[in-house]
Structures are given as structure tokens and as C-alpha cells.
């Protein structure tokens, strides 16, 4: 279809004023439902381990053991179908709940057991369920990956680090998740194709390379058969349930037909190739549920659904089975399904990952493998559908390149104007370059999709533990200035946290400081990589992921589970918090001590140790008058680049046990708040305990020259090493970017930013007054969506300190 024709259809939001009562009903119901914890999964796991099958499987190969346990969950969980929905399949046993993963970090919720209803993000659980939760948690203390990897005498201090979370926070302890599966194959080839491959390998007894299958490979192909069968069982159970409901009393003829259609779909997909647009979405959804039940819920994403489903969409439109309007309704129903799941965090952990989101990403627009634009009508319809749901999930991502059609960029910006912090924008040029830099072919890099919030994968080909850990970069500077100890307590009273680097008395030039800083970064990263390595070992034995393996290229060929390194591309990514704080601090330190010689290094460190007490004048000067990153000032931006490079180079020198490279991401979730509380005063004037800078954003309040300068600074940084992307947060007052003029301006901003080498940007359009009121009176503002770091959250779900940050962040 011609671009102009699409534009006419999609652009004006008013022409889609048709509302869908069905969608509004589902949405309202979801917003009014209290969140809970689902105990079905751990109960089924326990049931299985006590069963005969379970007991015998204990002595079988880890692949088989794991596949059988998961198969038991898939086959025996109760199907639930909710009113009005067009895409069926329940994520948990409740309408909105967190799954409990004994293998992961779910046990942390016990910290809040007695205040579940009173938390910032309340969880509703009956007292009977609470007792059950306690018994499940206590009964599975040693089942978690963290415990299996670290509860040993020589590793116990690393186990305790999960609770200290100063230098880094290893999220991989909870699960790996974070995947963009090969949904193209799921939709167009069905799981039957993978199953046939497994059967043929087993029958021939020969591997892809023509060698005798090893025991591991045989076990793997068997696990593939087991898991596919159980996914089909899950779909069949849903189909039966839908048929039963269709024929029950009081069901309207219309709903009867819908339910029977859904049942027919579930009897067909995901085993067989989808026959229609709706079946395509149903197939994706069913496999997505399996992915959620397998590992854990974070960052499980769908990839480029506008590309994957486009041919089915066109076919249905041509055969008059579908109209753009009915497609919007189906897409909206699909998007609402993603609201059924939440993560399970205790209040303590919530400070690091606030927002209750799991970030189920959908990527729209972009190019084909040759670099030609492939934005299509469906890309726009996904956004139109979101206009109707306006919920925290899913995460919507828009790819921008030179040939992105204007109508699409405008449409995406129009969606941003709704004020839900979506979609976020990604620059194809920088991203493709960064992915090629870690060994991807250009064609594969161009087929990237966003994992969760901002991370990147070549869809269906990558196993990226993209959120393995978060890293506190400014702390390394603190440690570098105090021989590995923190400023907060007298040196004699604390254990050395970092490495024993050169004493400041012996540092004679800026390069000496940088050297010590770099050494501290290396030291922290070495320790972190060691811990992650132990976790990886545990994953291979205790938590293989067969579902992930059947939808990721490479695993079938290699005949090994994805945790064994069989995916085409393997990566582990570490995210940095406080990047701008580190950069600005290096700048300030260099200028004060070495350029202007106003203080000796000893004097400066003394000032930092007493948290600027008695030196308020200096702190004011540093805060207001020193150049900072984010104002288009080269000398300041250069130091942030230096900090980023030190981190990136160190990270990239490591390899995980799957043979993949470690890569950096410049985003911080809300860890910059948690880390900030544990970090001492910094040379850029930041007082001890204050939150750190967020992702790629400038330090709060230091973007003195406005948003264009922030984009100039961010776009000027060399992002070619950031193979796990970055998050640049911008916030606009609703008034400043409303209407057509606001749309044109924002589109102009993003276009320029990406032309200049920008990688990612996300925008909150909001009214500060509304946020202040929402903080005072949360019940009056349900469903107020804001963008936190890489992800969106309901404002009321945020930790109060995070709410404050959202309010205080400079309003442009």
C-alpha cells in the first residue's frame, strides 16, 4: 500500500474515535483488579516432584528432568478464560498475579509477608494462601539458583552481597528471562516443524555435523518432544474450556462464535502454522505463556510483530475476514493480555526495580535485512490499538531510520502525547553498528528487536542475558580515592570493599586517578563475572529452558539447551548506573585539583569524606557553575565518554561460560536510587546518599540549556560499544508539546538526535501538578502511566522516592 494511503488511514486519532466497548470493559476490569500472587506453579512443581514420574526423573538427564517438570505444569494448570477477550490463555491462576518461582528469587517476598496489603504495591492474599506461601517458600529455600550456586562456605559472602547491593546487583540470580523468541517461526511454521526435526535427529542418531548423537544431545531432542507436547496440552485444555463456555447457558450467539473460534485456534496453533491474523497472535500468546512459566517473567518479548504478522493481516484483509478496525480490536485485546502478569519484588528490591513492570516488548517499524524501510500499516495499527488500552504493559518500541515514513514518526509521537511514556524510540544506525560490533552479521543486526525495556537482540537468534546485573560506576571512583574503602565510616572500622589501589598521596596527575578508577572498575567486574559464572553453571544443571531453546536459532542444530551456549549469538549484559555522575566527577576533580590546583587531592577527599560539611560554597559552585554533561559542552561530555569507555572496555574484555561476550548497557532501571543511597559524596557536588544519575541522562537539574542540548550531548557520545543499548529519559510538560506543533517539534527532535548518532530516547509527557496531586491522593489517579527508566509503570506503584524523582526531574 502507498505510504500516503496508510497515512490517511492511520494518522488522525479522531478518525479512530470509534471506541470498542469490549476493550473498555476488559481494561476497566483489569484496572480494578487487585494484584496477587499465584501459587499454582510452585504447587504443581511440588506435586510433580512427589509423583512417581517426578521421583524417577530425579536421576535422569537435567534436560529431561526439567522438561518433565515444566510439562507437568503446562499440562495440569487450570485454563481460565475471561469475559470478552478475543485472545485467550491465562498467565496465572488469577486475573492479575505474580508467578512464584522457587528456582528464582521469589523467596524475597517473605520479607513483606506481614505487610503485603499495606505496601506501595499491595498484594492481596488470603491468610490461608499466606500460610501456603510460607510453606512453599520454606520448603524450597535450597531450590533457588542463587542458593545452589552460592550457599557454600567459600561463596557465602557473595550470597550476602545480594542484600548489600553496593557495587553491583546481580539480577541473574532471579532468572534470565529477557528474550525475543523466534515468533516468525512459531507463527508461520508451527512447533510441528521443530518437533519433526527432533524426531529425525533421534531416528537418525546423527547430529547436524553427521556425528553420533551424544547423550546430552539425545536428552535434548527428547526434552524438545516432551515440551512441545505439553504446550499443545495447555492449548487443548484451553480449547476444551472455551468450548464448554461457548455452550453454557446464557452465552450470547456472538460470544459463542468467538469462543468457538478461539477454541478452534487453540486446537491448531502453536503446533501448526497460523491460518489467520488472529491465530497468529494466539500462537504468539500461547508460547509467551510457556516462556513465562519456564524461566521467569522479566523482559520476555514478542519482537517485530508488525513484520511477523503482516502477511496474515494482508491475507485476511484481502479475503474480507478482517478490517483495520477489527484488527485494532484484536490487537487491543492482545495488548491487554500482557497486563495479567506482574513481578514479585519485596519492598527492598522494589527500590531497585520500581514500577511493577515486566516489559513485554513489541518492536515496530525499521528495515529489512538489506536496509529498506518495512514500516507497514500494521505498525501504525499497533499504536492505534494502544490508544485504546493505555496500560503499563506492553512495552512499545519504534525503530527510526533515514527512510522511516513521516506518518509513522508522527503517529508514534502522537502516542507519546497520550502521556503513557510510550513508545520509546530507537536509532537503527547506532544499534545496527553496535550489534555488528559484537559479531552479528549486518542482516541479523538489521533484524533487531527490543528485549524488554531497551535491550537489543537479533530476534529469534540471540541468547542475551540482557539484564544480568547492574553496576554502580561512581562507587568505583569513591573506592579509587580511598584505597578500596568507602568514605562513610572511618577507614579502620570497615572491611575493604574494593581493591587496594594507589594511595592518593602518591597520585600526581589526573591519569593516576583514572588508573585507580579503572582498576576499581575491573576489580568489581571481575568479582561480578565470577558470581555470574557460578550462576550459569547452576542454570545448566537446574534450570535448562527447553521452550526458549525451541524458539531460538542454533539450539536445534547444536542439539543442546540454550543455557549450554547453543544459540547463534550469546551475550551477557551489564548495566551501568550513575554514568553522568562519574563523568562530571572526573571533570570536576581534574579541574579543581590538577588544572586549577585549588585543592590538593588529599584536601578534596577530606571534603568528600565529611560530605561537603563546611564546604557548602564549593558544593554550590560545583553544582551550579561547573560544566556538566548534557549541555552540549564538549569538555564535559568528553569525561562522560571517558567513564563510559572505561566501563565498556572492561566489560567487553570478559566472556561468559556460553562463549558469549559481556556487553554494556547504559541504563539503570531504578537502581540509581538504590545504589545512590549507598554511595558517598562525589567530586561533582553530589552529596552522600543522593540518587545517582539515571541511564544516559544528565545529572538531575544539570541540563541547564534544555532538551536540544541534552540530545546533542547524548548523540555526540560514541555508542558503538553499547551493544545492550542505553536509556535517555526526557520529560516534557504536557503543555509544551501538545497539538500538532508539539508533534512536529518532538518528531524534529528525535529525527535530529538519530541523525547525529543517537541510540535511544524515551519521553514522558506529563503535568507536574497532576503528579503532585497523584502522590498526595493516589486513589484519585488510577492508571496514570509514567516512564521510569526503560519501562513504564503506574505512578501509584512507584516507590515514594521514585515518585519524587519523577516529579523533580527537570521539566522542559
Amino acid at each position: 500500500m502507498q505510504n500516503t494511503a496508510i497515512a490517511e488511514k492511520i494518522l488522525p486519532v479522531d478518525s479512530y474515535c470509534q471506541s470498542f466497548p469490549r476493550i473498555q470493559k476488559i481494561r476497566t476490569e483489569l484496572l480494578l483488579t487487585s494484584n496477587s500472587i499465584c501459587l499454582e506453579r510452585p504447587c504443581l512443581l511440588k506435586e510433580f516432584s512427589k509423583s512417581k514420574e517426578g521421583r524417577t526423573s530425579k536421576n535422569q538427564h537435567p534436560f529431561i528432568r526439567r522438561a518433565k517438570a515444566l510439562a507437568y505444569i503446562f499440562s495440569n494448570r487450570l485454563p481460565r478464560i475471561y469475559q470478552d477477550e478475543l485472545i485467550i490463555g491465562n498467565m496465572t491462576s488469577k486475573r492479575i498475579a505474580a508467578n512464584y518461582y522457587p528456582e528464582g528469587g521469589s523467596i524475597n517476598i517473605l520479607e513483606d509477608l506481614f505487610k503485603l496489603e499495606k505496601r506501595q504495591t499491595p498484594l492481596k492474599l488470603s491468610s490461608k494462601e499466606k500460610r501456603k506461601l510460607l510453606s512453599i517458600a520454606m520448603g524450597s529455600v535450597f531450590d533457588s539458583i542463587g542458593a545452589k550456586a552460592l550457599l557454600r562456605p567459600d561463596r557465602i559472602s557473595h550470597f550476602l552481597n545480594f542484600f548489600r547491593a553496593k557495587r553491583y546487583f546481580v539480577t541473574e540470580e532471579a532468572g534470565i528471562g529477557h528474550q525475543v523468541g523466534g515468533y516468525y517461526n512459531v507463527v508461520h511454521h508451527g512447533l510441528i516443524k521443530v518437533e519433526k526435526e527432533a524426531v529425525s535427529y533421534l531416528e537418525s542418531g546423527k547430529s547436524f555435523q553427521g556425528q553420533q548423537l551424544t547423550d546430552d544431545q539425545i536428552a535434548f531432542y527428547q526434552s524438545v518432544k516432551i515440551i512441545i507436547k505439553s504446550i499443545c496440552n495447555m492449548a487443548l485444555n484451553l480449547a476444551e474450556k472455551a468450548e464448554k463456555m461457548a455452550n453454557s447457558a446464557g452465552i450470547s450467539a456472538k460470544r459463542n462464535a468467538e469462543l468457538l473460534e478461539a477454541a478452534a485456534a487453540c486446537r491448531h496453533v502453536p503446533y501448526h502454522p497460523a491460518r489467520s491474523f488472529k491465530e497468529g497472535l494466539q500462537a504468539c500468546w500461547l508460547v509467551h505463556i510457556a516462556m513465562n512459566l519456564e524461566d521467569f517473567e522479566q523482559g520476555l518479548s514478542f519482537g517485530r510483530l508488525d513484520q511477523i504478522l503482516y502477511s496474515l493481516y494482508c491475507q485476511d484483509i484481502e479475503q474480507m475476514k478482517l478490517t483495520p478496525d477489527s484488527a485494532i480490536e484484536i490487537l487491543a485485546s492482545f495488548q491487554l493480555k500482557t497486563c495479567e502478569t506482574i513481578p514479585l519484588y519485596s519492598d527492598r528490591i522494589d527500590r531497585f526495580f520500581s514500577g511493577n513492570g515486566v516489559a513485554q516488548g513489541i518492536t515496530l517499524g525499521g528495515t529489512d535485512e538489506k536496509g529498506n524501510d518495512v514500516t507497514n500499516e500494521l505498525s501504525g495499527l499497533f499504536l492505534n490499538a494502544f490508544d485504546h488500552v493505555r496500560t503499563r504493559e506492553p512495552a512499545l518500541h519504534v525503530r527510526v531510520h533515514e527512510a522511516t515514513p513521516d506518518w509513522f514518526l508522527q503517529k508514534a509521537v502522537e502516542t507519546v502525547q497520550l502521556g503513557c511514556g510510550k513508545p520509546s524510540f530507537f536509532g537503527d544506525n547506532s544499534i545496527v553498528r553496535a550489534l555488528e560490533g559484537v559479531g552479528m552479521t549486518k542482516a541479523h543486526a538489521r533484524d533487531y528487536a527490543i528485549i524488554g525495556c531497551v535491550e537489543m537482540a537479533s530476534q529469534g537468534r540471540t541468547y542475551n542475558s540482557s539484564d544480568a546485573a547492574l553496576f554502580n560506576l561512581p562507587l568505583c571512583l569513591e573506592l579509587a580515592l580511598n584505597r578500596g574503602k568507602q568514605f562513610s565510616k572511618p577507614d579502620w572500622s570497615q572491611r575493604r570493599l574494593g581493591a587496594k589501589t594507589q594511595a592518593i598521596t602518591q597520585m600526581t596527575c589526573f591519569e593516576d586517578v583514572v588508573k585507580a578508577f579503572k582498576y576499581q572498575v575491573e576489580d568489581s567486574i571481575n568479582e561480578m563475572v565470577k558470581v555470574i559464572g557460578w550462576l550459569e553453571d547452576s542454570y545448566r544443571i537446574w534450570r535448562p529452558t527447553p521452550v526458549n531453546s525451541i524458539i531460538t536459532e542454533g539450539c536445534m542444530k547444536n542439539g543442546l539447551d540454550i543455557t549450554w551456549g547453543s544459540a547463534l549469538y550469546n551475550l551477557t549484559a551489564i548495566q551501568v548506573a550513575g554514568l553522568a555522575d562519574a563523568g562530571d566527577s572526573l571533570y570536576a576533580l581534574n579541574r579543581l585539583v590538577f588544572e586549577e590546583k585549588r585543592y590538593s587531592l588529599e584536601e578534596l577527599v577530606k571534603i568528600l569524606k565529611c560530605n561537603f560539611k563546611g564546604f557548602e560554597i564549593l558544593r554550590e559552585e560545583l553544582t551550579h557553575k561547573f560544566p556538566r554533561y548534557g549541555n552540549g559542552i564538549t569538555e564535559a561530555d568528553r569525561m562522560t565518554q571517558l567513564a563510559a569507555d572505561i566501563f565498556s572496555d572492561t566489560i567487553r574484555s570478559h566472556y561468559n561460560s556460553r562463549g558469549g561476550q559481556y556487553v554494556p548497557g547504559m541504563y539503570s532501571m531504578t537502581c540509581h536510587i538504590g545504589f545512590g543511597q549507598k554511595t558517598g559524596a562525589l567530586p561533582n557536588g553530589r552529596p552522600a546518599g543522593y540518587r545517582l544519575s539515571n541511564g544516559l541522562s544528565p545529572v538531575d537539574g544539570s541540563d541547564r540549556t534544555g532538551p536540544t542540548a541534552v540530545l546533542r550531548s547524548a548523540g555526540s557520545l560514541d555508542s558503538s560499544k553499547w551493544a545492550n543499548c542505553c536509556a535517555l529519559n526526557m520529560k516534557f510538560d504536557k503543555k509544551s508539546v501538545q497539538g500538532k506543533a508539539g508533534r512536529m517539534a518532538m518528531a524534529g527532535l528525535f529525527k535530529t538526535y538519530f541523525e547525529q548518532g543517537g541510540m535511544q530516547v524515551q519521553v514522558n509527557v506529563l503535568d507536574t501538578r497532576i503528579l503532585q496531586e497523584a502522590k498526595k491522593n493516589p486513589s484519585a489517579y488510577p492508571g496514570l502511566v509514567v516512564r521510569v527508566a526503560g519501562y513504564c509503570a503506574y505512578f501509584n506503584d512507584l516507590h515514594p522516592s521514585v515518585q519524587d524523582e519523577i516529579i523533580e526531574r527537570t521539566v522542559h
Partner: protein
Amino acid sequence: MKFMKLDNQQNTDLTSLVFSVQHFCMHDGPGIRTTIFFKGCPLRCTWCQNPESWSRKPQIAFKQHLCIGCRTCVDKCPEQALSDPGYRNADKCVLCFTCVGECPSTAVVRFGDLRSVGSVIDELEPEFPFYLNSNGGVTFSGGEPTLYSEFLVNLTEDLQNKGIHISMETCGYFSLNEKAIDNSKTSLKKLLSIINLVIFDLKLFDNEEHKQYCGTDNRQIKENFTTLAKQKSFQNKPGLWPRLPVIPGITDSRDNLINWSDFLLENQIPFLTLVPYHKMGESKRSWLNTEPGPDLTPLSDEMLKAAQDLLESRGITCYAPGEEDWSLI
């Protein structure tokens, strides 16, 4: 902070006094713009929210709320002109701006830097791509930018050579027939022939009222508007867009609105931006030790709507700032 410094250009180089350069402005013409605020204004509208724009001299302002009471300004003043932070003896002060440079918390600030064309362009240049990608550009504002017409001609020519769209906001009080303050009349005429868009402020139609509230005669303003409207009709340049601040009890009277609508129709300009009165600049008066502005009732949505309805009933299409349909010009 290279732009905070006084530009010590040779006398041969053209300079102007600028008190602010603001990027990402969206209410002063189409697209993403940078607005340059020039210092000095011939009018003294009682409701003015930009007292720092009045004087043609650099000024020192004191922002009490940012002061941490460190007294650095007092201690460092070479003339001992300060008795306390914010208490500056204007007779002793020689405007050396030491206090501005020394204040750690930016409580003491300078309004008005001498800027050369080159230094302004250097500051704007990194923003060019934003203008070009959004059909935006640069806006001259003030104060009254026509006070620096020779400077502006140079700046405009340089920017237009780079493909940048230029607009100017004016109070309309300038003379095309007499020798202007800093330059020859030809430069102002030239400026008005090359610039892309003039955003023209209209305030009070009645001359006596204008004298009372804005401090000057308004015949010249109307005459200039008509000249520009005519010029637009046969040269198609510059675009002309009128703006009216809606000041409760002053500019929103029935007579004033009716007179202006007739005037606009006579000039064949049937549209207008209504700028709602706000009090956000009130604190700036205290920074500069200027006496407080009049205690006006805040403008309610109803009052704004009433003014708009009246104008629209007489054939004038009204716009809110930033929502103009620039294709009309």
C-alpha cells in the same frame, strides 16, 4: 560558560546587548526555535513580566531564593558596593560583575551580555539541525529587537545563508522615517525586507490608554503595522502575524477588542494570537529591585473565552500561542 563572559570585541565589530538565548522555544514561530532576547524596550507596559528587558544597559540581579548567605559577593566586591547580599549601592557599583562571577549558587546574575554576530552564530550553530528538521528557526525577541537593526541585518543574512528561517517579535514602536538610535534607518528597512516573519504585538487601541498603560503614543505602532501589512500584500514578505496580550481589565475591554478587530480586517489580517496574562515573571521584579507590578485579577478561562468569542464573532480567527496555523501567512 563562555557565553557568560563579556565579549570584548573591537569597536569595529557590531555588537548587541542580549539577556537570554533560549533553545527549544515553540511559541515564537513555527517549529523548534531558538529565541534571542535583546535588551532594551521603548515601552513600559504595566503588566510586563520581563523587567530585565527594559534597560539598554547590563544589569545585576539578585535571586534571594538561591542565596546561601555565604557573603562571597560582599567580600569580593572591589568597590565595597555591597553591604549585604542583595544590598548593592548603585552609586558605588561600577558594573564590574565580580559578584556575578564569584557567587557560587548563581543567586547573583547578570542580565545583558555584549554579543557579536559571530558569537551568537557560534552558539546557534549546533542547533541548526533541529531547526531544519522541524521547519523551525531563530526568533529575535526582547525587549525590542529593532533597537539593534544593523546588527540584526548582519545576523539575519548570515543565518539565512545557512538556510535558517528568521522571525522577529516586536512591540511595533520603531521609526522607519527617522534616524534610529543605533544605526541608520536603512538598516531597519532592510531588516524588514529580508526577515521571514514578524510577530507584531498589539496592545491598546486607544492612544490615551496606550500612553497610560504602555507609556508611549501608539500612532506609530499602528502606522508600522499597516506599512508591514501593505508590504506583505505586494512583496509577500515578511509574513505578518499579530498578537494581543489579554490583560484583565486593560486589554480585554469590549471597545479595545472591537477596535482591533476592525483594524485587523482593514489591514486584511483576519487572525490573531491571544496571549493569556500570567504572573510568572512577578518574582523577576524583586530580583531587579523593580517595584511590583499591578495587582491584576488572574485571567480566568471564561474571560479568555469571552475575548475570543467576541473577536471570532467579528471575523477574526484566534489562536493560542504555539498553536498558530503558520500556513496562513
